[in-house]
């Protein structure tokens, strides 16, 4: 008998939801103030900031929710987040010229104590650990 999946927002998962919520808040707020105050300076970077913020919001909602659809949202958002931080991190390390380093994913999240690099790995591990049959 395969076991039912456990809620991702229960037990230690609540810590993960809290961390994602903080990142959702800070990344989105930062992107919005950047876009409202100085969008023309670096439109690509600021739109990327906003995209990162939205991904963190989706990940937070996905991890906090208890229905199967939320788990799929969480998988998608956390996987996107991992790709995002690796791609943007690598691009910013190779060539800082085109990227003002004030997005949450720049240089693998250096400005945020590299938490943005570690977080998706923990997120994917937690989604796998709480899934059915584990």
């Amino acid at each position, binding site marked *: 008998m395969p076991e039912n999946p456990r809620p991702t927002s229960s037990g*230690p998962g*609540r*810590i993960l*939801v809290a*961390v994602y919520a903080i990142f959702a808040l800070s990344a989105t707020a930062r992107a919005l*103030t950047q876009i409202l*105050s100085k969008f023309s300076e670096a439109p690509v970077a600021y739109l990327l900031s906003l995209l990162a913020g939205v991904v963190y919001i989706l990940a937070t909602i996905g991890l906090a929710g208890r229905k199967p659809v939320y788990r799929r949202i969480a998988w998608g958002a956390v996987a996107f987040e991992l790709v995002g931080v690796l791609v943007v991190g690598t691009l910013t390390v190779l060539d800082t010229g085109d990227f003002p380093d004030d997005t949450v994913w720049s240089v693998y999240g250096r400005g945020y104590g590299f938490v943005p690099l570690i977080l998706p790995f923990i997120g994917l591990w937690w989604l796998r650990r709480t899934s059915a049959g584990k």
Partner: protein
Amino acid sequence: MLVALEIVAYVAAAAVAVYGVVTTVRNQPPGRSHRLAVGAFEAVLVVQAVIAVVLLFAGGVTLPERTTFLIYLLVSVCVPPIALQFATAEPTRWGGTVIAVGAVGTGVAVWRLHELWVAGA
């Protein structure tokens, strides 16, 4: 912003964070002591926010990124009670660490407030 109050805020954030993690390690769900700790921390943040707003709107202080400052100010005041609410909604040992995450995030927000404030001085 007053430097003395800012230091009190960092100390309070660190104290709440350490206390939260300690109660997780000791397998204690969040309770009255957590509410008091977050309440004291929140009081410091509210006083800090009120002083900053008064200085900004009536004290002649001008900041290059005033809107950003005000958003961070709002965030700093809102995060601890939300974290407390989320932590106590499922009273397990992990609630303490949820409160700790909120306290650390708030501490970082206070540091950003400091940077934005200094930029205007």
